[in-house]
């Protein structure tokens, strides 16, 4: 297959290749080009240019034929994507069509994918909470998975580094379990959220804080954000359409244009990575095989280092499909653990309630954020019959109270009146799940996709620990809401909501100290193929309770710094 025309090979040779252009791929691109490396970024989906390719961004509600609702035909054609909360008439074009991208669900797994330049960074929920040392110590303390090879002190400076550039709003809460970051001004909590926070401080002696969420929105941009061409968040809360103001962080608005400005970036959309090329004589990876999304033609590209940022499960897929006589079971997979110890966040359950106080107040405007309850279970020692714990989102609003029983003028008056109902609050659980060998992905032995890549087979499920955690969330949140005087408390749990719908899948290529029990070292290099770096969710040894993207960004920037130092030393 390779076409050994010297010029052609030269034109296909770079210093670095980045597979994927989502949150972590964008950071790889920015960092590597920033260090002067000629970098090829391969994106399997179409190009999406910031501002230009956000076709729905400025539409008013009445300009959508179905006011945002997905048509029945489209829903039926996309049973996976249509389970996602963000899949609406204004954003459907940023999700893959299910039929074009099949996978095999050995156990139900709702795999949400956005194949385009920017990936899911256009669609994410933008929560950005740091991990603490308590999170990194989890596996070692509680005896699951393997010990993390890094701790908070290793990652803290890189959190600061990415936060300053991405723009993270938040309040300095001084919590050991949720370290403060480099914050832009925080969003405001509503009266009811503040009240709940005060009540919890009183009833639980400050052990159950309720804080404003930290999120990737420019509440007050700094010069570094203006230099990216980004402006202040306009509180539209239409983020899933792509933000023409660059009000929230995405690869499209931030890292990719920054990388472009260096003159070192080559961005190739419509480029499906088939596998990584391993050279046995050199003992390292030399490039990647790419299938053109449209012509299906295969081309090889070469580089000295490769960053795999295809998003957790596709990173697993590419490595599993990178077979050679040295690595017959996938690149770097001597121990057979590649694709195993997949974890996710348990988002199955919610609780809602009402508050009869604060009748004389409302909120005004929109807030692309909510309050947040950091993990309080098993924080410093084991207290429950399940391992680890959960964080929870907490939001409040006051809706107009509309009597719709009548017809005619009475109904019309009631619809446009300003009578408000009680405050309503709701909270959703974000539960840590324990990575287990049985929760895995693998290649299907027979089926391939339209690009000749084997289909991914998912075998990931809830376990007893997850079920116990749901019961505890219901008990604890009910107690907390009751103590604060909330009424009409209702719990909701949907066991049919399969893993994956959290869009926080992690692991499969975990970091660790020992090559016998992990795939990556503390610098995110494959133990057995040091010039391949995995810095997306696939690298995660455990998943804790925080929204993970910020940690992927920090890990990526840290690994890129190390990669460049090693390159300069001639070690790669």
């Amino acid at each position, binding site marked *: 297959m390779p076409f050994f025309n010297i010029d052609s090979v030269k034109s296909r040779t770079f210093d670095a290749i980045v597979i994927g252009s989502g949150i972590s791929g964008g950071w790889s691109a920015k960092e590597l080009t920033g260090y002067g490396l000629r970098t090829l970024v391969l994106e399997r989906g179409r190009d999406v240019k910031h501002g230009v390719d956000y*076709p729905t961004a400025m*539409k008013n509600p009445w300009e959508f034929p179905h006011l945002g609702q997905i048509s029945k035909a489209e829903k039926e054609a996309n049973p996976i994507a249509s389970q996602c909360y963000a899949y609406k008439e204004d954003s459907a074009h940023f999700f893959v069509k299910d039929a074009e991208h099949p996978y095999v669900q050995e156990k139900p797994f709702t795999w949400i994918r956005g194949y385009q330049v920017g990936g899911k960074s256009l669609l994410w929920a933008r929560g950005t909470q740091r991990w603490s040392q308590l999170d990194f110590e989890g596996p070692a303390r509680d005896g699951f998975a393997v010990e993390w090879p890094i701790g908070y002190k290793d990652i803290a400076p890189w959190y600061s580094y990415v936060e300053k550039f991405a723009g993270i709003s938040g309040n300095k809460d001084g919590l050991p379990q949720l370290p403060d970051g480099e914050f832009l001004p925080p969003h405001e909590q509503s009266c009811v*959220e503040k009240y709940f926070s005060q009540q919890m401080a009183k009833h639980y002696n400050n052990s159950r804080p309720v804080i404003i969420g930290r999120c990737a929105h420019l509440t007050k941009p700094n010069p570094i954000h203006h230099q990216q061409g980004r*402006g202040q968040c306009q509180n539209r809360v239409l983020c899933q359409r792509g933000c023409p103001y660059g009000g929230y962080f995405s690869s499209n608005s931030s890292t990719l244009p920054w990388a472009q400005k260096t003159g070192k970036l080559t961005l190739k959309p419509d480029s499906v990575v088939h596998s990584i090329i391993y050279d046995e004589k050199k003992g390292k990876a030399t490039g990647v095989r790419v299938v053109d999304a449209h012509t299906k033609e295969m081309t090889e590209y070469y580089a000295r280092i490769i960053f795999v940022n295809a998003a957790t499960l596709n990173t697993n897929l590419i490595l599993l499909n990178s077979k050679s006589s040295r690595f017959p079971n996938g690149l770097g997979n001597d121990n057979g653990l590649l694709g195993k110890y997949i974890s996710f966040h348990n988002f199955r359950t919610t609780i809602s309630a009402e508050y009869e106080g604060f009748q004389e*107040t409302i909120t005004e*405007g929109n807030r692309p954020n909510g309050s947040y309850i950091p993990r309080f279970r098993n924080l410093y020692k084991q207290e429950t019959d399940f391992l680890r714990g959960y964080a929870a989102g907490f939001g409040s609003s006051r809706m107009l109270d509309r009597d719709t029983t009548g*017809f005619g003028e009475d109904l019309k008056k009631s619809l446009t009146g300003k009578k408000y109902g009680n405050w309503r609050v709701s909270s959703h659980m974000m539960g840590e799940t324990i990575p287990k060998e049985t929760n895995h992905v693998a290649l299907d032995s027979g089926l391939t996709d339209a690009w000749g890549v084997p289909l991914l087979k998912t075998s990931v499920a809830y376990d007893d620990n997850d079920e116990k955690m749901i019961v505890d969330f219901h008990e604890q949140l009910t107690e907390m809401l009751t103590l604060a005087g909330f009424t009409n408390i209702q719990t909701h749990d949907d066991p049919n909501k399969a893993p994956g719908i959290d869009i926080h899948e992690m692991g499969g290529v975990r970091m660790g100290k020992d090559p016998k029990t992990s795939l990556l070292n503390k610098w995110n290099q494959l133990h057995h193929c040091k010039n391949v770096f995995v810095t997306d969710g696939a690298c995660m040894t455990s998943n804790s309770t925080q929204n993970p993207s910020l940690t992927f960004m920090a890990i990526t920037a840290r690994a890129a710094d190390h990669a460049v130092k090693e390159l300069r030393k001639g070690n790669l």
Partner: protein
Amino acid sequence: MAVAGLVALPAWASGWNPATLGPVAVLPPAEEALLAELVETIIPETDTPGAKTLKVHQFVLRMVQDCYGEVAQNNLNQGLITLDQVAKGAFEKLFIDLDVTQRTAVLTHLQQSDDPATKAFISLVKNLTIQGYLNSEYVLLNMMEYKMAPGFYHGCVPLKA
């Protein structure tokens, strides 16, 4: 340069034409006219436009056609027949020929019906009428102080009397 992201909206932002919402045609003109009178009875013209002027009946049709299943579509068709049957039974006229009080009486009767299909019909049309009305350009801009970009969030504001 520094605030480019704030002020420069691309040209396509103003290029949207509501006419491109596309045609709807599940009902013959007579039935569509009847549906228009039905939604107007639910939300009538007062000192502000009613549902018919705001073309909410077309929204109802589009939603039933595109987002609801065959059961709802049949229910809508059958319901419009029932609507005239009830009107004739009570007032010996077609629904379209009744005055406002009579029309409201017919709808109230349908809403209180023991027949699940009839109840489903009136609640389908009523809910979609309310949704279409409240999200119409006129209502959002003139009655709801709608702004796409408020630019702020205040968590605790005194309720205006």
